[in-house]
């Protein structure tokens, strides 16, 4: 851990918030991607069955 001096809180909170936001963005994208992919597979399957 580098010595951040009196700016420890500042720097750490900036990193914390930014990384958290990035993780949320990536996480939500992956989560929705998975859901849509499986839902589409289901619909596609049904469509094939019904001709």
């Amino acid at each position, binding site marked *: *851990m*580098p*010595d*951040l*001096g*009196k*700016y*420890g809180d*500042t*720097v750490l*909170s*900036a*990193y914390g*918030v*930014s990384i958290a*936001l*990035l993780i*949320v*963005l*990536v996480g939500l*994208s*992956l989560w*929705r*991607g998975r859901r*849509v*992919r499986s*839902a*589409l597979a289901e*619909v*596609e399957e*049904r*469509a094939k069955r*019904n001709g």
Partner: protein
Amino acid sequence: MSLWEYANPRKFLTTSERLLPWFWGLAGLCLVAGLIWGFFFTPDEARQGATVKIIYLHVPAAMLAINAWIMMLVASLIWLVRRHHVSALAARAAAPIGAVMTLIALITGAIWGQPMWGTWWEWDPRLTSFLILFLFYLGYIALWQAIDNPDTAADLTSVLCLVGTVFALLSRYAVNFWNQGLHQGASLSLDKEEHVANVFYLPLLVCIAGFILLFVALVLYRTGTEIRARRMAALLARERAGA
């Protein structure tokens, strides 16, 4: 072979599927390397102390916030002129990423401003125009969500993006006129290339590369999701029409 072939959804999906692992991997690599380098292995700057480390998040995010909008503008134009569905969906996929990048730039900037300017927020032109850009992102996303018919939504959001760009530029100019702020001066020491020592510059470049790669990976992935959602909606509509 023409570039427009990738405007075919299926072709796009298979190609992006092949490329995505590379982009995810490289993005992760650059981000981790750049941020660790910047956070642990760069010295403090004389005037700004440790806060200079925020630059590795703030500047790439700010760059992408603007460039994501430009990408949406280009994609919207392609949709309006050539009617390639993939490009409209790519614009849709990019908007939330741009919004988050804007938010990161705003938040890190605000946190940085506290020690540097002694205030969280200042109605500086660059800051203000970023806030306005954020509003444009919000409006764009809200319009996509409000409209059921996907083609209608694509048309309307594309025109909004076009008109919005003009007004965003106007706002930028207006805000500049309205208040000459702090940001330029404060960042001048890093702006001029001779002042940006290589110790800060190189990790910054790696971080910027990481953010760009992450953006590309996210856009490719999310566009894939949008294509599938669109395909699913079409299949469901067909089912309904058949039933």
